[in-house]
């Protein structure tokens, strides 16, 4: 055995130098080329060099090493000599592989070292992060080696073994790429693990087949090679991909009843049920659930996200990238769907010609009242000039259900949207220009006369009333990180504008649906202003002190809280991590106050820092999102019930 190892080593050792020397020369070529600014070559950085090395040099080295399995013995005529000695075929194969694989590893390590040191020497500011995964490419290189070894056991010409090895390696790479599309949605790091597994599987199959071919090999005859090759092809091309697809299918397609976190919660217009989107890292892991707010019964409906109720509460509109059999669509795009939750049926909506190219809907926004729906999405502009700016956003207005006739469209880089005036106006913020735009149901859009918005500004609107407010911070922070915020409120019907300013770390503004009141929340205090006079009506109401940090808040950020107006604008619910207060600005008093300290702060890692959310389900019933749990309770704090997730449903007396 030692003799066999020695012989292989002596014959193959020169090939160790190929990759390192090639890497060094490549670095030099890139360096010199960049110096001469020729051929549009980017400066030498580690990524570039390693990409070339991993993609080209490693596989080539591997194929050269692998071709030494049997083809060179046959071509040289020493095949008969070697086989005529009392050496077991398995031992022969093992000796070759035991020498080849370490040589491969050594050459990869050396070339890595050479590239690193050469790059450090040569480039101005070297960044040593690499784009592609070295482990995956190492296994791919192994696959190229195995392919060449397989070809080399079969053919008697070295050149063919090398060429065939390259082909087999390419096929492996292709299958891995094809499989990586379903595997991508299983989630990293499992995806990387699965890629490595697939490549290792290929390498094992190819090497084992080369062993089988070797064992059946005869001096002077080529019979007997066929069966192992056919088996290998079947396993490699059919069985292995099928197993991987089945595994990803099992991982992926079952509805996830273990909810990772709640991405979006939307109560139905009548408050009787709640639709929510449970989230994962990837859109394909989003499921839309329907929860009965009374009984707490819940079930997963469809894959999708960014969903909204139709105005009559009978249907859900949502965006999904689900394709065949629960896998994501093969082109990766998203589509708009309308689902009838009673009939458990859904239908894809054919949107009209969206602007540009490779457009897809990404978000959907329906007002609780009003008949229009806004669809926003991404597209790539057709002309190359605009294309340089990258992917763009668009927003189109439709009448709900009339998806073939857009009412109007807006096209820009960022989008924050609010409905105003009974769902007839859509208010956008365009941060690139600092403008607030309004898109009307007649298709026209206009810029609202606000002062230019800085990056941390935003616009809000009253859903039923004609008020739009813009909040902008000056950007100059004092020693306690407070800055001056200016709030302008505009009546879009008569154009009257009022403004005020607040000094705080942050400002959370909520206009009541009828536009009469403006609730301003700053750290640990909430004040309700009358929009007509812009004077405080209630508050400032203290929520907690800045230094309290016993309920999981970050020190200095204040107590976390949520604000929600009731639909008739009569009450404002203020839910903090400590108390629930119902405020009546017309009467100027707090109608009810209950403690929420019975709600435990979850220590889960999925959302270490979260803000509570609150919605009005009916006149006296509230829905509270507390981290990843949904609770219903009455405004006086009774009938507390966790209705979601199903496993954690409970009633607290």
């Amino acid at each position, binding site marked *: *055995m030692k*003799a066999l190892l020695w012989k292989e080593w002596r014959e193959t050792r020169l090939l160790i130098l190929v990759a390192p020397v090639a890497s060094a020369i490549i670095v030099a070529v890139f360096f010199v080329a960049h110096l001469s600014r020729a051929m549009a070559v980017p400066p030498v950085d580690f990524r570039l060099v390693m990409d070339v090395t991993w993609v080209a040099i490693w596989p080539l080295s591997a194929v050269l090493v692998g071709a030494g399995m049997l083809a060179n013995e046959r071509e040289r005529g*020493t095949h*008969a*000599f070697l*086989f*005529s000695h009392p050496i077991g075929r398995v031992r022969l194969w093992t000796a070759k592989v035991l020498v080849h694989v370490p040589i491969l590893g050594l050459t990869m390590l050396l070339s890595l070292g050479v590239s690193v040191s050469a790059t450090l020497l040569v480039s101005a500011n070297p960044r040593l992060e690499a784009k592609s995964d070295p482990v995956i490419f190492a296994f791919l290189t192994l696959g190229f080696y195995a392919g060449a070894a397989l070809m080399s056991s079969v053919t008697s010409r070295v050149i063919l073994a090398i060429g065939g090895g390259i082909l087999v390696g390419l096929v492996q790479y292709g299958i891995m790429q094809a499989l990586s599309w379903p595997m991508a949605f299983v989630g990293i790091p499992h995806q990387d693990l699965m890629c490595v597994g697939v490549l290792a599987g290929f390498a094992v199959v190819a090497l084992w087949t080369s062993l089988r071919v070797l064992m059946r090999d005869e*001096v002077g*005859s080529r019979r007997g090679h066929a069966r192992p090759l056919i088996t290998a092809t079947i396993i490699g091309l059919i069985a292995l991909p099928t197993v991987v697809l089945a595994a990803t299918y099992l991982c992926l397609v079952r509805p996830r009843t273990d909810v990772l976190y709640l991405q979006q919660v939307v109560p139905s217009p009548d408050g009787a049920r709640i639709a929510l989107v449970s989230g994962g890292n990837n859109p394909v892991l989003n499921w839309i659930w329907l929860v009965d707010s009374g009984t707490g019964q819940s079930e997963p409906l469809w894959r999708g996200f960014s969903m909204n109720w139709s105005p009559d509460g009978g249907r859900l509109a949502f965006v999904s990238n689900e394709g065949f059999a629960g896998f994501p669509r093969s082109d990766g795009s998203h589509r708009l769907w309308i689902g009838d939750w009673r009939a458990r049926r859904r239908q894809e909506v054919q949107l009209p010609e969206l602007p540009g190219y490779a457009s897809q809907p990404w978000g959907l926004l329906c007002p609780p009242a009003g008949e229009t729906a806004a669809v926003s999405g991404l597209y790539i502009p057709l002309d190359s000039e605009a294309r340089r700016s990258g992917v763009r956003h668009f927003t189109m207005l439709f009448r709900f259900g009339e998806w073939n006739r857009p009412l109007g469209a807006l096209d820009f880089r960022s989008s924050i949207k609010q409905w105003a005036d009974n769902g007839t106006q859509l208010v956008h913020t365009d941060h690139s220009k600092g403008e607030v735009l309004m898109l009307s149901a007649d298709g026209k859009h206009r810029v609202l006369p606000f002062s230019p918005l800085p990056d941390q500004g935003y616009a809000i609107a009253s859903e039923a009333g004609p008020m739009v407010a813009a909040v902008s911070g000056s950007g100059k922070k004092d020693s306690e990180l407070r800055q001056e915020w200016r709030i302008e409120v505009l009546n879009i019907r008569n154009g009257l504008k009022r403004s005020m300013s607040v000094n705080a770390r942050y400002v959370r503004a909520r206009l009541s649906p009828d536009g009469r009141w403006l609730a301003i929340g700053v750290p640990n205090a909430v004040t309700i202003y009358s929009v007509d006079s812009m004077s405080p009506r209630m508050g400032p109401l203290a929520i907690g002190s800045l230094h309290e940090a016993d309920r999981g808040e970050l020190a200095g950020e204040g107590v976390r809280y949520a604000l929600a107006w009731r639909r008739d604008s009569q009450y404002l619910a203020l839910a903090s991590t400590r108390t629930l207060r119902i405020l009546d600005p017309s009467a100027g008093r707090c109608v009810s106050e209950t403690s929420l300290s019975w709600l435990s702060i979850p220590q889960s890692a999925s959302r270490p820092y979260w803000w509570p959310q609150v919605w009005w389900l009916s006149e006296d019933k509230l829905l509270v999102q507390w981290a990843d749990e949904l609770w219903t309770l009455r405004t006086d704090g009774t009938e507390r019930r966790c209705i979601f997730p199903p496993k954690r449903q409970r009633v607290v007396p």
Partner: protein
Amino acid sequence: MTTPVGDKAAPVIETKGLSRRFGRHEAVRGLDLAVPRGSVFGFLGLNGAGKTTTIRMLLGLLRPTDGSASVLGMDPANDGVAIRQRVGYVAERQKMYDWMTVGETIGFVKSFYPTWKDALADDLLRRFGLDPKAKMGSLSVGMNAKVALLLALAHEPELLILDDPTSGLDVVVRREFLESIVQVIHEAGRTVFFSSHFVHELERVADWVAIIHEGRLVASQSLSAWRVRTKRLRLIFDGQVPAQVSVPGRLSTRRHEHELVVTTQSFDDAALQSARATGASSIEVLDLSLEDIFVEVVGGQSHASVAVERMA
């Protein structure tokens, strides 16, 4: 036609109906061989007769399509490694690793044989005049063959299989070869299976000869039996040479004006009688060398196959 010689030990090599087909070409058909222990077994045949294929099947390098073989009591298809450990094999113009030196080649090969004797290897090195530091690629054909023979002999094999080892060698080297083989023979219990073209030198050492033609075994018997049974009869006639002559085992007939030369492979009294019965005035019985025997047997086979075709 096989008769065991010497003691009743089991044959070293035994094949039953051994056959091998390459596509449609039948290289070896139904070979029944029995190589007695301790003999020098000559395996004669034309080029392409199937000698190398047979030897490869005996060593387990090729699998037979039909029939079975037994070498040293083991089946080559299953126990190839064990068989090759006890067999010394010299192939025709064996190509070895050019980049290794003679010494390195020896070091490489000896690790596979548990019975390798270094002293013997050194002795052979000296006797063959080989330089251990010379690269294999720089050796002449003769030196190459000597190295191959050294590798085959140095592990003291029970069975030595030689596949035309002396083709392309000059007279001197061939002599050296034969001398080394003779030495092997004189050691008790060793068997030599020798396939060669050089019939007359095989004649000098072989005591058993099998002739293979077109994949089929023609005959396998001791050399003395061959000599005794294959004779050339020269029949001289006073008058007309008869058209038909029936002599059993007739291999060939040559007609001249007044004489008929008949070669037969089963010469005995009966044959002599039928020769006399032809009415020849004088009959000469000529001994044949192995080479003549071989030419006649093989030629006769071709004639026989031609005749068979004509009759069919």
